[in-house]
């Protein structure tokens, strides 16, 4: 078990290193932010001076290893825009995004799991078809459009929900709905089809042959088995949720990392983009690792070290 964990962690570290290389060079292809940071009338000499002061005039490889050396010690550099440590800025925003993501994931699961179970149990029925159609609808909305429509409806027209910001549970509802729509659709569909497949499996036939109650077959025999492929997708959805948060946070002016990232990209605030991407990558890699580990809990065949 420990061996397995260590090798997975080493791999994760390698992936993170790859991510850091990718993001570092990618955002620098377009040049540095000196001209953007200074006001429009700043003369060229001024920009050059600033560039030298920031060290942007050095070869990229040198800058990368400088970055890597510092990053390994936890120093991701100073944000150009905020003049504060980049990682600190990102970490400050993480709780907000996690809260939003968790709320969205919770919504997804609360809706999709019972819906999928019902649809699979009544495969071919009206409920089943309705669930398919609903998840299809959920997959077909552009998130930002849904967000605008919700604001128009619930904030402007009915004045039921505050359209932006963070702090109260009401402010969490609309962004979470927008964020949850796609994952709910995906998870419902996937769990439904896995359930249907499992319900046709030999061991479910065995259980029926024993005379086990249908409800027990669905909730006990089928659900846990169907959860295994679904879990992978839920793991991937976490990444998608974090990605989707970028747009959602922007529309609802929600102070999370996604919004920080968008602005950092627009402002060429390298250090913040780097800190953000590396942190997100670490989060995604960790979640996938946890998903891998949890397979063992669900599926005894995958338990290691026995």
């Amino acid at each position, binding site marked *: 078990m420990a*061996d*397995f964990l*260590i*090798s997975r962690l080493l791999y994760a570290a390698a992936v993170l290193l790859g991510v850091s290389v990718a993001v570092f060079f990618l955002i620098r292809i377009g040049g540095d932010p000196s001209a953007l940071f200074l006001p429009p009338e700043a003369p060229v000499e001024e920009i050059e001076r600033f560039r030298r002061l920031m060290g942007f005039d050095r070869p990229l490889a040198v800058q990368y290893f400088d970055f890597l050396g510092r990053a390994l010690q936890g120093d991701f550099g100073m944000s150009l825009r905020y003049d504060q440590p980049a990682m600190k800025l990102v970490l400050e925003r993480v709780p907000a995004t996690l809260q939003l993501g968790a709320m969205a994931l919770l919504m997804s699961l609360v809706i999709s799991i019972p819906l999928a179970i019902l649809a699979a149990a009544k*495969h*071919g029925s009206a409920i089943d078809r309705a669930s398919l159609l609903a998840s299809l609808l959920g997959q077909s909305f552009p998130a930002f459009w849904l967000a605008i429509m919700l604001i128009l409806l619930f904030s402007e027209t009915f004045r039921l929900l505050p359209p932006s910001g963070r702090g109260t549970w009401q402010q969490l509802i609309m962004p979470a709905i927008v964020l949850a729509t796609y994952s709910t659709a995906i998870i419902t569909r996937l769990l439904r089809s896995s359930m249907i497949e499992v319900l*046709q*499996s*030999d*061991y*479910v*036939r*065995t*259980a*029926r*042959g*024993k*005379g*086990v*109650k*249908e409800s*027990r077959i669905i909730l006990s*025999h089928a659900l*846990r*088995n169907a959860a295994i492929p679904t879990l992978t997708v839920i793991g991937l959805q976490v990444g998608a949720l974090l990605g989707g948060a970028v747009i959602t946070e922007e529309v609802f002016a929600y102070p999370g990392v996604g919004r920080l990232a968008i602005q950092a990209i627009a402002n060429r605030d390298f250090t913040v983009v780097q800190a953000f991407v590396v942190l997100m990558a670490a989060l995604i890699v960790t979640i996938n690792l946890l998903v891998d580990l949890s397979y063992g809990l*669900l*599926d*005894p*065949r995958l338990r290691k070290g026995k």
Partner: protein
Amino acid sequence: MSNQDLQTPPAGDTTQPVLSVRGLTTSFLVDGSWRPVVNNLSFDVMPGETLAIVGESGSGKSVTSLSIMRLLQKGSSRIEGEIRLGGRDLLALPDGEMRHVRGRGMAMVFQEPMTSLNPIFTIGEQLVEALTCHGEMGAEAARKEALRLMDKVRIPNARARFDEYPHQFSGGMRQRVMIAMALAAKPDLLIADEPTTALDVTIQGQILDLIKTLQAEEGMSVLFITHDMGVVAEIADRVVVMYRGEAVESGPTQDIFYDGKHPYTRALLSAVPRLGSMKEQALPKRFPVVDIATGKSTEPATVAGTVVRSSRPVLEVRNLVTRFRTRGGLLRRSEGAVHAVENVSFELFQGETLALVGESGCGKSTTGRSITRLVEPDRGKVMVDGVDMRSLGKRALRQTRRNIQMIFQDPFASLNPRMTVGAAIAEPFLEHRLGTRAEARDKVADLLQRVGLSPDVMGRYPHEFSGGQRQRICIARALTLDPKIIVADESVSALDVSIKAQVCNLLMDLQESLRLSYLFISHDMAVVERISHRVAVMHLGEIVEIGPRAAVFENPQHPYTRKLMAAVPVPDPSRRFISRSAEADELKSPVHPAGYEPPERIYREVGDGHFVQVE
């Protein structure tokens, strides 16, 4: 044949049947229309009786069992007719009551022990569930009863294995669990749907004996579904023969075997290889072929002497070793190795068939793959027509492999579904630049004819052919490069008996005309007896006995060989009361810790070219 004949119980027996099926018709919804797969089937199962339904794939025998259990998918299936269990009309029962009939009234053992147990629950939990799900037993009592059942089906060390998961059990052990589960609620009727098909022959024997023993102990009736006439002969009191969804014949087992009336029954029986039928016969012999329409049968012909022992062998294997390292942990250290092939040596002459026999996991397939270098062996020497296979580089290997070709087990997986059969057969010809496209066409046409197919099928795709036809196509493809040796890896095992006989005959025809050498890998002893000149028995990666076919079959020396021979079910109802031990002995494992070297083996020559490993 009228239904009346089928329903009549044995004369003088006035007891009520346990199961009575009348006019059963089961249809499936296919692309919007109902297509019947079982048609107007009627039969009875009497108390304490074993009724076998026998038929080849697609005959509707499994659908029959699932119809009786009402386990078919609702919505896409339709069951008509009457099914009475102990007098109750099952088709009229509401779902809730039917649930209680399943398990208590009748129980079922399925074909696939590997997938029929829920992988995420322990064996104990699944047994306990079978005991408690009808609400008659508490958890503690159920646990005790489950352990008793595990003992009853002879699962060794039941208490310790109670909390293990299915994947920690072998196939045979899982099937014992399935049987224990079926026995849980003491059903009147046990339906066993091909319960031994997926198992090795020695395990099959154990399971059959277990079912017989338990039937005697519990006094239940058994509805046994199988395609194997050998198994039928061993277990059934009466037989129903099914063909394309209909019962074509039924009657007591003896009558069916010795006095089968329907041509299909006779075709089925004539195609069944009978172990021991080749006594005093030195050369391979073709199978008799029965025409199902007319019932006429052709006399089998012996294969002419093809073996050329004068020149050097076309294939020489010396001390071949193939191990699969199991890796784990940090830096993927080697933790141990599966000793799949251990110190295997033999030779194969032109025109000769050498059979490699043994049970699953014994290393016979890996031996075939190591010789062709589909798997890289660790040690040893493989000489193909004087060329050392193991010394070859990639390019030279491609050339040398023209001499040695393979035919695989699964005819459905052996052909690229996206390639016409013509293209598949021509591909090696063109790839090796042996001629123009026109020449390739001619070659393909010629080969198709040789394997008994029309050259017109060239443009068709594999899914348009039956399993037997596909295997013929595979044989044609293997012949494209004019090989000297063909490694036939379980090439006929997946085929229905009647088809199996034809393909075997084809192989023998080709050997006669093309002087081919076969390395015939099979677990099917009866086929091996017919087709081979020499036989090598493998066990745990090693050859334990090798010699001329007649010598090995008629005078087996190694204990393992004897056990193997004894386990083969023979289609001879007169032998059915010979019982083997129902005790379980599981196969030993060929997995050893890293660094393990097996002891030196010594072989003793017990007859002319007949060698036995000294224990």
